[in-house]
């Protein structure tokens, strides 16, 4: 049984978690860029009008470039996430959704010193229709449920496999537990899917429903 209020809170909670996580990382990038720019100014000031070490400057500029590239990646991730609510009934490529869910979960895995992997073997070009936001939400919850009790060093694998009239998903490497599982199960069922025997495994139909709508 699913509770529409809980599903709505779940959707909003997912939205908030992603926005907080990405903006937190963007803030870190900003902090690093400010320090690196400040460091270059400090070196110039310390040189007192003499030439500064060109190699050091080039290395610092390279480090700034790396952070700018990281910022560009984060902004792209946030932008794509924002577009996930553009259309509630569209074609979703499973492999892309899996990669996006992994990217959204990466910081949570880093905080737990865990690694995330994906395997979309038979589902390589598999398309399901529905809301990209809902599919991302389900995959995100599945990964978070796996991470909840995972010890440091765990490698979590999100595997997607094409199945009759739908797609099977499994989180392998840790047994999903806690509140995340309960909401995940509600989401899967309310989307027209069903839970499989293995904890953290579920089947989603080729046409997803919008849970809570």
């Amino acid at each position: 049984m699913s509770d529409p209020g809980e599903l709505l809170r779940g959707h909003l909670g997912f939205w908030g978690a992603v926005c907080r996580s990405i903006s937190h990382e963007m803030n870190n990038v900003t902090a690093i860029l400010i320090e690196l720019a400040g460091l270059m100014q400090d070196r110039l000031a310390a040189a007192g009008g003499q030439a500064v070490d060109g190699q050091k400057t080039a290395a610092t500029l390279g480090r700034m470039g790396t952070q700018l590239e990281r910022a560009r990646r984060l902004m792209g991730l946030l932008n794509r996430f924002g577009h996930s609510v553009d259309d509630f009934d569209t074609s979703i490529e499973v492999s892309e959704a899996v990669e996006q869910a992994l990217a959204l979960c990466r910081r949570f895995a880093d905080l737990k010193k865990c690694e995330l992997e994906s395997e979309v073997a038979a589902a390589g070009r598999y398309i399901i229709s529905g809301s990209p936001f809902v599919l991302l939400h389900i995959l995100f919850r599945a990964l978070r449920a796996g991470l909840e009790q995972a010890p440091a060093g765990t490698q979590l694998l999100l595997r997607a496999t094409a199945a009759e009239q739908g797609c099977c998903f499994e989180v392998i490497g840790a047994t999903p537990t806690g509140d995340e599982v309960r909401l995940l199960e509600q989401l899967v069922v309310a989307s027209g899917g069903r839970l499989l025997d293995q904890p953290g495994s579920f089947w989603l139909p080729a046409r997803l429903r919008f849970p809570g709508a």
Partner: protein
Amino acid sequence: MEKIRVIIVDDEEEFVQALAERLKLRGFDARGFTTGAEAMKDMESNAFDVALLDVRMPGLGGLDIIADIKRRWPERQVILLTGHGSAEDAEKGMRLGACHYLMKPIHIEQLVEILQQVAGPGQKEQGDE
């Protein structure tokens, strides 16, 4: 004059390196670590005056180690670093014994002023007794 010894702990390596170099250019003895465990290990064998700790890090975060630091070296000062949105954590850290918390991105001159306030001449000698 003896240098103020600062330990910087943040999982963002670039941040740690750049900030440590900036503090060294300002006359501090700064060393950086990217995990709480590495920093704690270093603290056991090397003296420090102030620990600058990121609140949230993989493994041991600032809030996990602050109580340990204050229990073992009560005279040492702890400053917490936090991103936006974790002010609540920072307040918790203050209750655990931190003397200040700073939001990232930090202002270097503000940090320098605080370091001198909490571990400058007078403060430091008192702490070393």
